[in-house]
């Protein structure tokens, strides 16, 4: 999972259009039945969902996208920045893709089979796929990519995602790849919907070496044209694409860091679409002629607070629960988000397949909070430092929390920290109580394990609960999704009760665009793909 830069404008993401096109679980099961365990989701073939109900798609035009930040590399094996992923999803294919409910759908891998012992997965690749440089995107190329990531000497940031469960990969023929697992791992395929799943051209990689990130070659529906740093990235339709070809002639990702300027450029038709608008601009954009705002609520991106549960004063469960009851989530959504978001109660939003309504959740209850404070030994309240990123939204979050907890006689001193330094200070335990936000991964194990498993490298709260550890291990070692869903419901409930985090809200995601932009689809990982988009003339 990637943490996005905490900006006011990073609080949004589109909904209703998406829901009309959403792939249901029923669809999924129906198609799965035809291929044994393997799945063949034709509508998501190569990542272009078919438009439903709307006018027939039109061909042509260049989509001008207002990008929040520049890319630093277009080499997926070394990519960590969120801003790089929208471009990479256009240039590359992933082995498999994720649907709007985080189901796994075929992409390069058209179907797959798990061995009876759960220790190997054999995938059948699409035949006759070519990279933009004309070389074959086959089993050997897939093996080369996975081996590159697994080679520790290459220092790929993607290593950590594959190494814990993947022992190796074998090419059994031009279109057959077998993955050898160290142990049965249900989240296996989900990892290949993300960065580890992008397949680059090995020939181009060897040709360009360290400069591949500026000369990317994939097998996706668009091919790279140019990248002018801090200005734009341009890509054009790849006519030799193996799957459903793009409707657009090309896409230009224009870097415009200031949200107010991006919003203005959509209004002046200098841009066709952007993301992360200034929340203050959203009502203006909704009224502007020729502009629409497509929103998704809730998103797969939660905001909350965290603390060290192994250090005083927050090693006191009653105190943590008191604060959880003392946070008025509705007020956060109303004041901070202007109503553009949903309250969060737990690490899982309702939009993904593993969500279950928690039996016990926190509601704003100051009386109960005061009782719990007294039980925790803080009947007169207490003072503590709260660290937050020094962005306008980070500070706004802290100030609202400060005002709410004052009602419980808890005095917060706000410690603003540079956003790029905050997480490091958390890891180094220089700060205890902080604001945080995380975005979901395509498999529940991805985020829940790194945050809650005892001693995990991203478990920055010091949380340790043997029951949760056991449940996490059980849940990722079975391929039965219904069984997994029940186990994740128990995990969500347990961490909600233990409160290593207090989940506050899921900001909605908003995408302002010209009315000419059609069929915009998105996934709960907050990464716009633009694969299905077409423009009316």
């Amino acid at each position: 999972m990637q943490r996005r830069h905490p900006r006011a404008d990073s609080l949004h993401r589109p909904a209703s259009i998406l829901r009309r096109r959403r792939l249901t679980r029923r669809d999924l099961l129906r198609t799965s039945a035809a291929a044994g365990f393997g799945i063949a989701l034709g509508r998501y073939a190569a990542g272009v969902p078919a438009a439903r109900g709307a006018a027939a798609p039109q061909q042509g035009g260049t989509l001008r996208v207002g990008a929040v930040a520049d890319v630093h590399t277009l080499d997926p094996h070394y990519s960590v920045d969120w801003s790089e992923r929208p471009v990479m999803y256009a240039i590359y294919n992933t082995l498999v893709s994720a649907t709007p409910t985080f189901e796994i759908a075929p992409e390069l891998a058209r179907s797959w089979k798990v061995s009876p012992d759960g220790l190997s997965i054999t995938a059948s690749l699409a035949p006759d796929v070519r990279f933009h440089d004309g070389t074959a995107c086959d089993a050997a190329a897939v093996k080369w990519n996975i081996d590159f990531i697994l080679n520790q000497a290459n220092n790929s940031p993607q290593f950590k995602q594959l190494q814990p469960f993947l022992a190796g990969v074998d090419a059994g023929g031009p279109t057959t790849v077998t993955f050898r697992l160290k142990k049965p791992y249900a989240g296996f395929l989900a990892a290949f919907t993300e960065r580890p799943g992008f397949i680059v051209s090995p020939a181009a990689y060897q040709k360009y070496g360290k400069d591949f990130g500026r000369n990317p070659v994939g097998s996706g529906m668009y091919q790279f044209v140019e990248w002018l740093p801090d200005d734009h990235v341009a890509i054009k339709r790849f006519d030799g694409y193996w799957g459903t070809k793009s409707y657009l002639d090309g896409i230009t990702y224009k870097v415009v860091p200031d949200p107010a300027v991006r919003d203005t450029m959509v209004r002046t038709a200098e841009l066709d679409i952007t993301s992360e608008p200034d929340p203050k601009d959203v009502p203006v954009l909704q009224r502007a002629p020729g502009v629409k705002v497509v929103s998704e609520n809730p998103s797969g991106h939660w905001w909350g607070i965290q603390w060290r549960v192994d250090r005083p004063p927050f090693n006191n469960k009653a105190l943590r629960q008191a604060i959880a009851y003392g946070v008025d989530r509705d007020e956060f959504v109303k004041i901070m988000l202007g109503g553009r978001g949903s309250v969060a109660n737990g690490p899982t939003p309702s939009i993904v397949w593993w969500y279950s309504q928690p039996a016990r959740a926190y509601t704003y209850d100051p009386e109960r909070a005061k009782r719990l404070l007294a039980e925790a030994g803080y009947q007169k309240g207490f003072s503590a430092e709260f660290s937050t990123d020094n962005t306008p939204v980070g500070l706004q979050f802290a100030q609202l929390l400060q005002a709410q907890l004052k009602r419980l006689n808890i005095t917060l001193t706000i410690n603003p920290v540079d956003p790029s330094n905050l997480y490091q200070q958390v890891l180094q335990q220089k700060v205890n109580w902080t604001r945080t936000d995380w975005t979901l991964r395509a498999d529940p194990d991805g985020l829940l394990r790194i945050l809650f498993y005892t001693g995990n490298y991203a478990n920055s709260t010091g949380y340790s609960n043997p029951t949760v550890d056991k449940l996490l291990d059980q849940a990722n070692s079975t391929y039965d999704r219904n069984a997994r869903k029940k186990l994740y419901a128990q995990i969500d409930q347990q961490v909600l009760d233990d409160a290593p985090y207090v989940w506050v809200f899921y900001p909605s995601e908003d995408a302002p665009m010209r009315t000419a932009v059609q069929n915009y689809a998105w996934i709960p990982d907050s990464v716009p793909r633009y694969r299905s988009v077409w423009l009316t003339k």
Partner: protein
Amino acid sequence: MTVLVTMAVFWLLHGLLGDPTLLILGRDADPQTAARLRHELGLDRPLDVQYLDWLGGAARGDLGRSLRTREPVAQAIRERLGPTAELTLASMALAAAAALVLGTVAGAWYGSAADFGVSSLCVIGVTLPNFLLGISLILVFALTLRWVPSGGFVPLFPNPGANLQHMALPIVTLSVAYVGILSLVLKSSLRATLGALYVQTARAKGLVERRVLVRHALRNSLIPVLSVLGIEFGRLFGGAVVTETVFALPGVGRLLVDAILGRDFPVVQAVVVLMTFGVLFVNLAVDLSYAWLDPRVSYG
């Protein structure tokens, strides 16, 4: 001087900002990979060794590779130098030209309504934040009047017309504060010069007022203005960072901010060296111009 600056920057960056490996690998990086990368980048060596290594490379013209993008630092700077050079030099030229007119009017007609008007505008210009002015200009000239684009950059060659359209608002935005400062300095300086004995002598000789003003008073009044111009050049670069961000210009300022936030030490170091050279060069040019403006100054 440059060595001292790089030394200070190096220690400040490493001391205050800390380890870049988590930003390179992502915040969920596993500790073993982070440690290996730290070793490969040489970040686990003592700071003085790292500094001397960098200095040795820089002296040979090798500024290294960016930690984040892996591209050569010199290339990263070269690609972004055009917009920044155009923005800062054009802003400085525009500010100097506008200040020459406004400061002369305010100084020559000291205490008049014109002086009051010019001085008030100058004070507003100095106090108006760059980003606010930039956004306001976009709303008026790009959104409402649709005369110019809201942002972006087109190279000067081969398309000077489109370049001017894109650069007009950023140049005006960046120059406004400097018009204010330079005009106020020129006004005070001209006011003092006009009271000097040699100006009275010139008038007594019967010279027309325009010749007294332009030939005798103004030229001698420019020395403090030029001094301020040199000193303010560093600040102009700071203003360029904000202006580039508002107008989405792919310049060195944005590269620097991005590199600081990403702990990209080689890039930060190189840009700081470049800025230091820029400020030193402009101040040297200013010092040399004193002799041209005032015959009493000589460097013999």
